[in-house]
């Protein structure tokens, strides 16, 4: 399981715009680099990222080889209700990682 960091404010007011930050450890190997013998190193990247708020998708990103190692994604949403934000990264060679955090909305 890859190491992921999430920053979501633990508490927010209803209707407040909140910032969500995510960072996952991943080499993001482009597939264009040769190894010591000159053979290309196979591509190994995260291709998709999805964030759901109480099961409903609120943010999605497609990732490509030009994106640097350890992708750091930050985005905003409106705090509507208390519950869970879930995060999922998927990619080459069956890569998959999930995280979730709780938010309390008053």
């Amino acid at each position: 399981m890859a190491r992921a960091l999430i920053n979501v404010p633990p508490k927010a007011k209803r209707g407040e715009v909140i910032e969500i930050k995510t960072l996952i450890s991943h080499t993001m190997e482009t597939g264009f680099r040769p190894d010591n013998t000159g053979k290309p190193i196979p591509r190994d990247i995260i291709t998709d990222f999805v964030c759901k708020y109480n099961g409903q998708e609120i943010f999605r990103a497609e990732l490509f080889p030009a994106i640097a190692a350890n992708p750091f994604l930050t985005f905003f949403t409106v705090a509507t209700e208390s519950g869970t934000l879930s995060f999922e990264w998927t990619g080459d060679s069956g890569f998959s990682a999930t995280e979730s955090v709780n938010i309390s909305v008053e």
Partner: protein
Amino acid sequence: MSAKRTSRREFLKSAAAGAALLPLPAIAQGARGRVVVLGGGFGGGTCARFIKRIDPRITVTLVEANPTFVACPFSNGVIAGLRDIRAQEFGYDKFAGDQVVLSPGTAVDPQGRTVTLGNGSQLPYDRLVLSPGIDIRWDGLPGYTEAAAERMPHAWKAGEQTLLLRRQLEAMEDGGTVVISAPANPFRCPPGPYERASLIAYYLKTKKPKSKVIILDAKDAFSKQRLFQNAWRTLYPNLEWVSLSNGGKVTSVDVGEMTLVTDFGRHKAEVANVIPPQKAGRNAEIAGVADRTGWCPIDPATFESKLQPNVHVIGDASIAGAMPKSAFSANAQAKVCAAAVAKLIAGERPDEPRLINTCYSLVAPDYGISVEGVYRPADGQIKEIEGTGGVSALDAPNSTRALEATFANAWFNTITTEVFG
């Protein structure tokens, strides 16, 4: 271009005619030419000496604002209580008396080729060498102001800041947390934050063993990384390194709360050492030789500025490609620059240089490690020559580490003697 080949004699005649159109050079006064060196650290001090050594007919004036130079290399030893600050201090009394002017440079006129001094007088030059060192980017880290540096010292320019950090460590109670923030590249002394963390950890281990050290880093890799990390595993279990991909990048500081803020957390510190983003020193700014990066683009063979003619920039302030910003680099660049300046003043073509750098770091007083590199100009930059250089062996015995620590001391004594006499 004429199709006829110019003979050597004709070429010399036209070159002489061309020279007559230039502003009156110092040759008219019987001297060979006039060089001003602005900034008397490892780069400037070396350059002034070597120009004179290469061609004693050149008039060389070293302009430096501070009567006492405080050396950064080994100043981590002062912070850890292993060394007195006086061992870091050097004066200019060993330079020839007429060679040094203790004054700030307040302005540079690259067109008129003059440097204005603190008292308003002007020093004319044929060539100017700048060795500006670094300044802190006070707009580079939210919350980190000059006032904040009095609570959270950077200690990245040796002197009062070094002593402040030392006093804070002495005053800290056993069990406290020291947080060091390391910046993204490029910055002065790439292994410096990690040597500092090591020596602070050494001090705490021997005097305040319940305390710990955390490095918050804006990078995922650093100089001599495996050597440092291997040593830390054995020597300092209370030292933690948080890399960029682990959320280590400090995005702001809260001085009131003594807290360093990252994208993913807040780190409260009893002692906070913030090594902030940096830029070329002020003398680079007044001469107009720094570009939008804050550093100074140079010709890799002569160190002549790409922005101002007849001005050379050496040391930490220069964009020296693969060469790290170190005292050794500044010293090597100064010698190359001195040779180039002497050739250019003589109207000759400078040689293609080779440059060497060695950086020693102390992980403990008797535990030294090093990195070496050999460099040359290639593709308009300074590049490392493949197959040269390297780092200390990963599996060396303690006796080798102890020997490298003595080499480190010898290096400091050698370079400071070469520069300051």
